[in-house]
């Protein structure tokens, strides 16, 4: 194929930047070849790190940063963070290629993100796309057999270059046109992280985020269980951003099919859940120190009492004869005194 750019200018690549090492290396090696690189990072609503930092007490002591932004700054490239929450729902709800070990639709997700990068590339007059994928690294989305699927379903075709394993793939258009030097690319494969770490050392990259993945709640079994429960309880697979945010927060306990409790696990979560009080029936412990509890679903008076007896287990009054709550149901507040459940009364199957 001939060079589609008859009046050569500096080639321009858009890089998918997750904040991990692989995408950092991919962007760096292409940038080092004289290509102008800008990064894209997609916010699906299921991202892990920033939210747990912001919510939980125990995470507040750790350094807070968005790893994708940090990587972009280290590389000296621009980063565009794109809200894909609405469009991403179809990927989660109806993945053409199904789910992985949990609710992770990794192959559909990769095709979706590369497809969005292709749209961005076209709109901004860039020439090709790069990712940090390594063949054989992930069981679902990074296999020899699925690489062509992502190219085809994203519409990127051979404008998609994977610099870390390019030598194991047919030459892409950026290589054939000489925009990048294929010989200076890599042939990494498999799950070992050693080649990437060695390359990082060679490039003088001493600090990077977790070596691979771990950035998506959909790969987490506990989170996935809660998402399945949400859909089952509603009878459909729809969700809003607040739904999936709340699945990251608190203990989720469903003692009856029609409602569940979301019990804050610490002061940070109580503070966060307070922002949702106006939209949920809720229980605030008044006689003892204890967490805020939201009630999701339609509840009867008996349900509220049941919820209060469960919630009482998680406050300082768990061994007291009576615990009082300010119970707000249907916008009306009342004092509710209950005897806390014994531990064995909170059935394991209730805890999501």
């Amino acid at each position, binding site marked *: 194929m001939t060079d589609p750019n008859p009046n050569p200018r500096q080639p321009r690549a858009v890089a998918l930047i997750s904040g991990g090492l692989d995408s950092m290396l991919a962007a760096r090696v292409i940038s080092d070849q004289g290509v102008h690189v800008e990064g894209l*990072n997609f*916010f699906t609503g299921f*991202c892990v790190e*920033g*939210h747990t*930092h*912001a*919510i939980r007490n125990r995470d*507040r002591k750790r*350094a*807070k*940063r*968005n790893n*994708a*932004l*940090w990587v*972009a*700054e280290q590389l*000296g*490239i*621009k*980063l*565009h*963070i*794109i*809200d894909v929450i609405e469009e991403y729902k179809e990927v989660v709800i109806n993945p053409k290629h199904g789910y992985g070990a949990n609710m992770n639709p990794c192959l559909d997700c990769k095709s979706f993100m590369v497809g969005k990068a292709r749209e961005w590339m076209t709109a901004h007059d860039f020439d090709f796309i790069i990712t940090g994928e390594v063949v054989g690294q992930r069981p679902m989305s990074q296999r020899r057999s699925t690489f062509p699927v992502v190219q085809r379903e994203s519409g990127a075709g051979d404008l998609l270059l994977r610099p870390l394993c390019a030598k194991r793939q047919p030459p892409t258009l950026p290589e054939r046109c000489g925009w990048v030097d294929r010989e200076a690319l890599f042939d990494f494969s498999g799950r070992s992280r050693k080649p990437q770490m060695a390359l990082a050392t060679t490039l003088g990259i001493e600090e990077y985020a977790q070596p691979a993945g771990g950035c998506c709640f959909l790969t987490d079994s506990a989170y996935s269980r809660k998402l399945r429960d949400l859909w089952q309880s509603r009878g459909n697979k729809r969700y809003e951003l607040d739904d999936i*945010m709340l699945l990251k927060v608190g203990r989720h306990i469903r003692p009856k099919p029609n409602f569940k409790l979301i019990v804050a696990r610490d002061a940070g979560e109580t503070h966060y859940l307070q*922002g949702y009080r106006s939209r949920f029936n809720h229980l605030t412990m008044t006689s003892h120190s204890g967490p805020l509890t939201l009630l999701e679903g339609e509840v009867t008076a008996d349900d509220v009492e049941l919820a209060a007896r469960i919630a009482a287990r998680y406050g300082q009054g768990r061994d007291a004869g009576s615990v009082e709550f300010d119970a707000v149901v249907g916008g009306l507040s009342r004092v509710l005194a209950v005897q806390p459940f014994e531990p064995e009364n909170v059935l394991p199957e209730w805890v999501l």
Partner: protein
Amino acid sequence: MSRQVLDARHLLCPLPVIRTQDRVKALQPGDILEVRCTDPGALSDIPAWCRINGHAVLQADEQAEEVVVMLQVGPS
């Protein structure tokens, strides 16, 4: 030169950064934007976004559980 305030309170990162990014697109070089957030991560993330995109950070601090970042839009 205009001066605007963006309320990004009760949003978790990266949403405050995304809202900042979207608002800045509609501003002119030299305009000033004050962003108010409750996510402590915004204190590092919004300034980082500004640095890599060529905008000046005039102020970034935490006041009474709110993060306030004031930026000046850089040349386009």
